[in-house]
């Protein structure tokens, strides 16, 4: 018998609120399946199961706030394990087809019962296409034809069952979700329902798109003080500030920071990048940040004293480099999700991951693991125009790299004066783990790596 508990989604998180269950008793979950949506003080996140088995019982109702570590659901490893749990038997017969988590998630959103469809993938595994077909097939039988849904005929409901994604989509499309007939389980409104709605309804109102729900992470830096949207409830703003404040106080109280700064010569890197970009469509062009992040990740791998976690009086270097990237949100606030294994990614891949991460961070679609496990963080305030930024380390990490604006600078070399693009890089590092010499070697290594951009 396993328990699914309220996970810690960040060093400063003390409790979380259950927003939505994506499973019900009797469902089979694999390790890594997204099973619930949890609201922390700062952001709403998908949470996956660490257990595998059948959900025997949900212990916490939607809307309840509980401390981290609180059991949220009982999970039976095998159906026989818990003879008493009747729900485990029903619909469990899971072994049938393998349902990869993303497909399961899609099925949930579309209101498709995966146990009733046949998989066309390897070894009978369900694919996205299977689920989409099943969703399409069940629409006509379960629901009135979409075009028959005259707006006036559809009764308005105050309480609507729907997924967060469907609600978000509804807002984006200017659809009143209360007017949308649901075709999902128990009449839940699915993403597909929402997409169908505008064609039946009046043209979508030119409503301003939804403000980002201002997920905010404890990355210290300028920008935290930016105004939050006025629609944001006051208590949310206050709790955001409290949690940033408490984490930063803890960082400054417990971590003896030291600071270094150096100027990185970007002449070679920018020239190479412009050459590469010249031959590329906009969609695959690079920005200097991609090169800077890759060089930082490689340098971090070579200098383990800046890459890892300091916990319980001990430093544990990390063998992987999960590079946290501070992302400024347009309505104020910051998140610092991780690009996993950034040191092993080709620059192009890293660039795509960066774009993907930033757009998801701004839309509030980050995964739990991205938020929880950066091994070192980079804050890149160059776009905001400052020349240098000295970050506050995000515990339990031991280093924070700050990158300023790329500027053209007069540059003396071999007795000649020239002009070249340069950027000020800073390091805030933990003196319990490294000394200035090591820190300096790390920063110098970033500069060296940038001199051969084609090898990054």
């Amino acid at each position, binding site marked *: 018998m396993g328990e699914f508990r309220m996970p810690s989604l960040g060093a400063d998180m003390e409790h979380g609120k259950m927003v939505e269950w994506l499973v019900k008793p009797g469902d089979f979950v694999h390790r890594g399946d997204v099973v619930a949506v949890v609201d922390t003080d700062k952001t709403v996140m998908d949470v996956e199961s660490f257990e595998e088995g059948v959900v025997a019982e949900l212990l916490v109702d939607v809307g309840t706030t509980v401390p981290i570590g609180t059991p949220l659901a009982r999970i039976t490893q095998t159906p026989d394990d818990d003879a008493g749990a009747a729900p485990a038997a029903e619909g469990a017969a899971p072994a049938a087809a393998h349902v990869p988590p993303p497909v399961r998630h899609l099925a949930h959103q579309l209101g498709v019962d995966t146990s009733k469809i046949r998989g066309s993938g390897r070894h009978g595994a369900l694919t996205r296409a299977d689920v989409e077909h099943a969703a399409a097939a069940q629409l006509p039988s379960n629901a009135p034809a979409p075009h028959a849904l005259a707006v006036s005929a559809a009764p308005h409901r105050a309480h609507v069952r729907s997924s967060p994604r469907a609600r978000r989509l509804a807002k984006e499309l200017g659809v009143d979700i209360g007017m949308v007939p649901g075709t999902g389980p128990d009449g839940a409104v699915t993403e597909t329902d929402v997409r169908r709605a505008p064609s039946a309804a009046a043209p979508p109102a030119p409503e*301003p*798109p*939804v*403000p980002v729900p201002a997920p905010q992470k404890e990355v210290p830096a300028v920008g935290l003080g930016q105004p939050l*949207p006025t629609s944001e409830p006051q208590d949310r703003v206050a709790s955001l500030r409290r949690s940033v404040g408490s984490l930063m106080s803890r960082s400054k109280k417990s971590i003896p920071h030291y600071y270094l700064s150096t100027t990185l010569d970007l002449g070679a890197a920018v020239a190479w990048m*412009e050459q590469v*970009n*010249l031959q590329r*469509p*906009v*969609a695959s*062009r690079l*920005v*200097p*940040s991609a090169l800077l992040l890759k060089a930082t990740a490689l340098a971090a791998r070579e200098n383990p004293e800046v890459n890892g976690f300091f916990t319980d009086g001990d430093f544990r270097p990390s063998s992987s480099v999960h590079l946290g990237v501070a992302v*400024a949100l*347009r*309505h104020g606030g910051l998140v610092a999700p991780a690009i996993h294994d950034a040191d092993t990614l080709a620059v192009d891949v890293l660039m795509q991951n*960066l*774009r993907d991460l*930033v*757009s998801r961070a701004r839309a509030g679609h980050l995964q739990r693991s991205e938020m929880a496990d950066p091994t070192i963080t980079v804050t890149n305030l*160059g*776009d*905001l*125009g400052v020349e240098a930024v000295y970050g506050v380390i995000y515990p339990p990490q031991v280093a924070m790299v700050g990158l300023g604006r790329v500027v053209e600078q007069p540059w003396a070399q071999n007795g000649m004066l020239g002009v070249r693009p340069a950027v000020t890089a800073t390091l805030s590092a933990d003196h319990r783990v490294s000394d200035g010499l090591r820190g300096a070697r790390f920063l110098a290594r970033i500069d060296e790596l940038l001199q051969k951009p084609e090898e990054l």
Partner: protein
Amino acid sequence: MNEQDARQAVHTAIGQVAPDVDLDGLDEASRLRQDLELDSLDFLRLVETIDESTGVDIPERDYAEVSTVKGLIGYLVARG
């Protein structure tokens, strides 16, 4: 491309990349980075969105010309 179409394309693209910008009250002298607070990734997406909607691909060497709303509209009028 005439100025009205260019303005429309620019407004639509800004609306997608930076939904919080008030397009009705948009001062065309606004600088995309400093005033509208687009970062380099936002800017890249803006250029990409405009390429998709108008077919005008703005190469990197011309980025300086399109650093303001007005400059961007003018660029599209000239090349679109």
